[in-house]
Structure formats: structure tokens, C-alpha cells
């Protein structure tokens, strides 16, 4: 039984870490967001293993359901095709990598492993453990954590209004945003133009053709 739990924990940990590394390493931002969803699922599975079922459900609902959709929408609204395929990390990434690896290897891991955690002994197998579940959580939200609960509600409302205010754009200031098809066509025409212009720079016809679709919309 214990070996099974250990194997499951190892698989979940591996899955989470691989997904997280892919999130920061993959070039395509959309793939990165999809790996982020996989990582959220892995964390939810870890919550299940830690017997926090309600938190696992909340994780899937909020992170997988809401936050990742938000991220995907933001990517779709801000993506430039011309910027795709270029490098995704800043030039200083080796320094950052060294800092984070050193932070983990010299500070975090030794501290966590050498610390004497006075974990209370687990009850023997077979006896049900007194675990706080969703019922206790709900009771806590209307009793001892009532004020915090209300404050979080206000915070979410303020964040919602703030997000709308920040992202709102007056109609008069709206500029023309090319659709994906128009942008692709423009890119293709530019590429063809560059191809044509190099061997025969005198020829005038492709230049006249190139200006046409730019003001199509």
C-alpha cells in the first residue's frame, strides 16, 4: 500500500515538474499555456493525494477553468504573428538560471531536508483520521473566517471592475487591428516581395501589387 502511494506521488511530482519546465522553456506561448494547464491538473492531483478533495475541485474549477482560459484569451488578443518563432527568453537567462538553481540547491533543499519537522505521528492504519472536510470549511466561512470571506468578495469585485476599466478602450481611440487572415496575407506578400526584389530590382509590378491589400479593410 505504501509503495503504491509512493509511486503515485513520484509520478505526480515528475508530471508537475516536467509540465512546469515546459511552461518556461517552450517557445510557442500557446503551447506554454497548455503546459500550464497540465501543471495545474498535476497540482490538483497532488491535492487529492493529500486528501484535500475540496481544494482539488477548486483548483480545477478556478485554475484550469478560469485562469487558463483568461490566459489563452490574453494570448490570442496580443499575439503578433511576426514575433513568433523568435527566442522567448531574455538575454540574461543564464544568470537567472544560475540564481534559481543555486537558490534551490544551496538554500531551499538543504533547509527543508535537514530541518527537524516535529510531525505528529499518524494514527495506525484502519482508524479513521479526523480530517477537516468541506462541511467544516463551510462552517468556518460563516463563523470564524466571516470577515476574511467578505473581504475576498470585495477584492474580487474590485479586481473585476479594475480589469474592465484597465482594458476598456474608447471607440474613438480604437485603431484598426488586422485580422489573422489579413496579417498572414501581408506577411506572405512581404516575403514574396523580398524574394522578387533581390534578383530583379528594376521590375515595378510587384511593388504596385504589394500596396493593394494593405488598405483592404
Amino acid at each position, binding site marked *: 500500500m505504501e509503495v503504491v502511494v509512493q509511486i503515485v506521488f513520484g509520478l505526480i511530482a515528475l508530471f508537475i515538474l516536467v509540465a512546469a519546465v515546459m511552461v*518556461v522553456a517552450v517557445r510557442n506561448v500557446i503551447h506554454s499555456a497548455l503546459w500550464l494547464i497540465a*501543471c495545474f491538473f498535476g497540482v490538483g492531483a497532488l491535492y487529492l493525494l*493529500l486528501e484535500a478533495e475540496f481544494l482539488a475541485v477548486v483548483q480545477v474549477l478556478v485554475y484550469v477553468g478560469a*485562469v487558463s482560459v483568461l490566459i489563452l484569451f490574453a494570448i490570442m*488578443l*496580443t499575439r503578433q504573428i511576426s514575433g513568433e518563432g523568435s527566442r522567448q527568453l531574455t538575454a540574461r537567462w543564464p544568470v537567472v538560471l544560475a540564481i534559481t538553481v543555486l537558490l534551490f540547491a544551496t538554500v531551499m533543499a538543504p533547509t527543508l531536508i535537514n530541518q527537524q*519537522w516535529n510531525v505528529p505521528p499518524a494514527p495506525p492504519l484502519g482508524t479513521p483520521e479526523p480530517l477537516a472536510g468541506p462541511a467544516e*470549511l463551510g462552517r468556518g466561512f460563516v463563523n470564524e473566517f466571516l470577515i476574511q470571506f467578505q473581504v475576498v468578495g470585495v477584492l474580487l469585485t474590485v479586481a473585476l471592475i479594475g480589469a474592465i476599466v484597465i482594458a476598456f478602450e474608447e471607440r474613438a481611440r480604437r485603431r484598426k487591428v488586422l485580422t489573422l487572415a489579413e496579417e498572414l496575407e501581408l506577411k506572405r506578400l512581404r516575403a514574396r516581395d523580398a524574394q522578387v526584389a533581390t534578383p530583379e530590382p528594376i521590375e515595378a509590378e510587384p511593388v504596385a501589387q504589394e500596396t493593394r491589400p494593405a488598405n483592404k479593410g
Partner: protein
Amino acid sequence: MLNAVPLPAVLTLAAALFCVGLFGALSRRNLIGVLMGVELMLNAVNINLVAFWRYFEPRYITGQTFAIFIIAVAAAEAAVGLAMVIAVYRHYVSVNADEIDQLRG
């Protein structure tokens, strides 16, 4: 779970996830990539909280409540952050963090 997997194993996993998220937040060029790194770090913190709850005081709800509040705050942060990314993109026509170097609109 308590007997099979020691607490430091879970905490080390959370620390590794935090470091990966930190690397992403500090070294991605894309602003949305930076936000994704922040989300990873928040998840790592939540794993820590749930692990401490499970190993130390499973009969009290404080640890889980804290984790739920952090999830709510993370959702608010993601909404405002992505709205700001969209506003910045509208002004600079770019989401590259290195090109955005002034706060004036």
C-alpha cells in the same frame, strides 16, 4: 500518505516548482509568460500550505482556508494582470517586457 511520503519530499517538490516559476517570471520576454511564472509560484505556495495542513493539524481547517484565499487572490491578480497586458499591448503593439520602459501612457 503520511507514512508513505515524508513531509520534506512534498516541500521539496513545492520548492522546485517555485524555483521553476521564479525562473519563468524573471527570464521570459513575453509579459504573459511572466504572469504564467507567477501563477506557478502561487501554486507552489499552495502546495506548501496544504502539506502543512495535512501533516500537522488535519483536524483544523485553517490551512485549507488559507489556500482557498490564495486561490481567490491569484484569480484576481490574473484578471488585473492580463487586463494590464492587453492595455500595454494596445499602446506599444508589443508584449515584450524589455521594450516597455515607461509608465506614461
